[in-house]
């Protein structure tokens, strides 16, 4: 029997090697799998999408912009474009890349798969918003037409993805809404966020970190050269004009907005013995989770009282309509209550 020390060392080295090769997501095996995926069809589809997005924004698409988007060499880019031409999906006109009708149809299918998958991730899984786009980028190539149709049906034929982009329908039409960026607001105006641009990713990540989400109601307080100051969900947000360009909003008529912005505290702020009335459930609470909360009786107008805190932290129990419901802090924070209505036990409500 070889010395135990040698055994242990061999074992640890072997374990490290196995980890390097097999670690999910970062190991050699999964990297090579991703590399292989970057072959043919995936690149073609990404190219189609790129050209399509440029056309939708009425920008010109050249070989160099495509090469940058695909992150590949000029030679490879030319190969991809040649394949597109042969397949009758795209044409080169005056140095610009243009999609044919067939190509547009194909691109729309890919875009549809992408946005449906983002909608699915947002509504039915707990995946972090910053990961939606990256995951959908991978999944859009894997979904067949039939699978996309089934997914759309299961989600209830959603009209928009969680960034607010319209989801192309099965027959290839895209509902178009006029886009108003946040930077177009005047101080004092109120609006609701309808779209968050998901590329470039750094900008989107910053927006999410600042607390932006679809359906958020905000009011523009002030604007200066390098910054805009908004108020939403009871706190102030400062952002650069570049970020504001990527947020699309819809102006709200004055009366309606007043009710919504007055919420200043959430269920998570309730202390022992306090009760309050629910004003609204934040739009950041989506899909299945939102429905479940409402089914349990947490709807605007309901009186909720704090009952007790979980012993290992992280969640609390509340008395709702005669029953006791336990919610985690993240969920309680999404339920807005009216501060002036917070009442200690024994006081008149």
């Amino acid at each position, binding site marked *: 029997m070889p010395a135990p020390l040698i055994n242990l060392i061999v074992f640890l080295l072997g374990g490290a090697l196995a980890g390097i090769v097999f670690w999910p*997501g970062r190991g050699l095996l999964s990297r090579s799998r991703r590399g292989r995926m970057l072959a043919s069809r995936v690149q073609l589809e990404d190219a189609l999408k790129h050209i399509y997005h440029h056309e939708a924004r009425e920008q010109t698409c050249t070989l160099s912009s495509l090469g940058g988007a695909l992150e590949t060499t000029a030679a490879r880019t030319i190969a991809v474009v040649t394949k597109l031409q042969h397949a009758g999906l795209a044409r080169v006109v005056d140095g610009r890349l243009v999609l044919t009708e067939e190509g547009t149809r194909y691109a729309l299918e890919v875009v549809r798969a992408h946005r449906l998958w983002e909608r699915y991730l947002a509504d039915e899984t707990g995946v972090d918003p910053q990961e939606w786009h990256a995951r959908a980028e991978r999944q859009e190539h894997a979904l067949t037409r039939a699978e996309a149709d089934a997914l759309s049906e299961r989600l209830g034929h959603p009209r928009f993805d969680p960034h607010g982009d319209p989801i192309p329908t099965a027959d290839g039409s895209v509902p178009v809404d006029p886009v108003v960026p946040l930077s177009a607001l005047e101080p004092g105006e109120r609006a609701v966020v309808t779209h968050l641009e998901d590329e470039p990713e750094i900008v989107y990540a910053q927006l999410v970190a600042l607390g932006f989400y679809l359906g958020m109601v905000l009011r523009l307080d002030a604007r200066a050269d390098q910054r805009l100051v908004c108020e939403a969900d009871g706190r102030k947000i400062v952002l650069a004009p570049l970020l504001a360009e990527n947020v699309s909003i819809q102006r709200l008529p004055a009366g309606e907005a007043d009710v919504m912005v007055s919420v200043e505290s959430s269920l998570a702020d309730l202390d022992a013995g306090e009760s309050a009335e629910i004003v609204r459930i934040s739009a950041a609470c989506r899909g299945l989770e939102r429905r479940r909360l409402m089914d349990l009786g947490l709807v605007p107008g309901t009186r909720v009282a704090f009952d007790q805190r979980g012993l*290992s*932290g992280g969640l609390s129990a509340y008395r709702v309509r005669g029953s006791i419901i336990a919610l985690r802090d993240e969920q309680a924070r999404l339920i807005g209550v009216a501060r002036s209505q917070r009442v200690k036990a024994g006081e008149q409500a």
Partner: protein
Amino acid sequence: MSDHEQPSSACPPAACAGCQHHAGNLVKLGVNMERFDYVVALAGNPNTGKSTVFNAITGLRQHTGNWPGKTVARAEGGFALGERRFKLVDLPGTYSLLSTTVDEEIARNFILFARPDVTVVVVDAGNLERNLNLALQVLEITDRAVVCLNLIDEARRHGRTIDHRRLARDLGVPVVPTVARTREGIDELLTTIEQVATGETVCKPRRLGKGARKVEQTIESLALDVEQAFAGVSNARWIAIRLLDGDARIEAALETGELTDVAPGIAAAVGDGTLAAVAVNPAARAVVERARSLRWDLGHGFHDELTEALYTEAASIADRATILDAEGPDFDLDRAIDRLVTGKWTGFPVMIALLTVVFWLTIAGANVPSGLLAQLLIDKTQPLLHQFGAWAHFPGWLSGFLFDGVYLATAWVISVMLPPMAIFFPLFTLLEDAGYLARVSFNLDGLFKRAGAHGKQALTMSMGFGCNAAGVVATRIIDSPRERLIAIITNNFALCNGRWPTQILIGTIFIGGLVPAHLAGFVSAGAVVSVALLGVVFTFAVSWLLSRTVLKGEPSSFSLEIPPYRPPRFWRTLYTSLIDRTLYVLWRAIVFAAPAGAVIWLSGNIHIGGSSVAEHMVSGLDPFGLLLGLNGVILLAYIVAIPANEIIIPTILMFTVMTAGVAGVGPGAGVMFELDSASDVSRLLTAGGWTTLTGINLMLFSLLHNPCSTTIYTIWKETRSARWTVVASVLPLLLGFVVCFVVSQVWRLF
């Protein structure tokens, strides 16, 4: 009226219009109406005592199973009133019928498509608002309903009286107050059901009121379309609401005519959402298209507004029907208990104390019955079987194969497994019915969340201490598939009942044997408890690891209703749990343990080149075994005894005798046995070359090795994924190898 003696395939289509319940759809949903006249559905929120009502009505005439194609349990039973026979189907407990979880779909689809003659909605009198939300939704779908106002004794205790006549007037359907636990009001409930089923009582259910909501016009106009397209449909408004909510199932049902019997007898599969190729009604298609375009304009807010409207309605009805006592509620027993059980300082000690009591009762209580069963099945019956074999002139090998192999393993599993399970599970169910387990989940959620898992895993883990397969089935309570998988994969680390004898015996010999006799009992108990706690540690650690790597994702939402404390139905629970568990153990013993016994006997008795197959395998596995701090005998025992952990020790003893050439011990080759005293076992194992290290590593390996074959089979049935079943089986095994290896090398360093 329906007097069907056979399923609908024998009826002419024209008869469908006059029939109350839809026998054809019932058959598709797995409900056989052959000997019954009427079908009654039982719906309600969770925690309303619905199953108590069900049991009170059907007594013992019930059986449980699953809904076709789903892993959701279903109970059905029957009762008779005079000449009429009623079938009662228990629908899954749901908070609402609007959302899209599996439970809600099943409940909704049954009421909608099977069209039961009566739907009974069980309502918790102390929680009227939320329960009325469901009742109102049911009344939107069907107009033959009865409200069973249950738990009125609890409401009385909390200072509320419900004016059920007022409630009945407001709802438009009969309301029967009951206390199901004591059968108060049940007879009246049955009579009311009969009256509604036979049409004696006609209900005029309240439909969702009209308010000043901007979606109201949309609903009304679409409802008109539906009525025009399908003359005579009774719940056009509800259909319009579902279409506007984007309910794909209703869209499909409209198009194929399933909802409206425009084209009866078309085979659209009920309950799983798939459509066969069917003829589509063009008028229906037009309505659906119109609904879709209207939906786009309505946006997300529609569902919210609908739910709000329902609740406002429910609240006002509840308000009018509730009379609060002037003096306020009596001393609140619930809060007092909660202060003790979930108080800051007392919560965890109480939890640990209760679990310890449950385990102690199981181990101590199972001892004598296990011994008696072993005496009966093995000591007495086995020689009789051998005598029979001799009388029937069985060749020696056949006798040995059947009676020493197959029968012995089966009998062993039954005698070791049955008593502990028969004690542990009733105790567990009692705790659950009393409402305590929800509080355990509540208190441990913080820990599980930090490990990337769900608080309800606390419950499935505790159940796993009784039986891992039962723990895997229990994971159905976890909604998120990702967290459910984590709970399933880590369930194996809960030390199940079948492994306790191994742990106790080895702990006594190898750990208790290290200390002076007066401390031995205490120390060996401590060792076993440490191993169990180590299992809990591994559960958290592996959950954390899984949620960071292959099962990545954000924690899902956690909303748990904490029910009030209720006295459990002691004898009834004991009885049903006992029957369930006994049948389960018998099934498992026959299906899994018997073949294992065959394999064990064969391995000991088939000889190749002078020694038995077992001896060959042992010597082959020895090097690897020793590397791990175990030995070949242990590894072989674990291979052949995959089906059942209970027979590990007897198998080990048998193989040790064989390979160590110890004479005079044990009944012979290929026959498992047990020794009477721990010291006898100790002597035998030492003769087989065992050391303290072997003992310790056996305890660790027993904790960490792959799940037993019943559990593997259950995992496959629950997940339907070969990939995850393999992961769940192989991961613990690899972990076991790694841990044993590291321990043995470190041990040998010193």
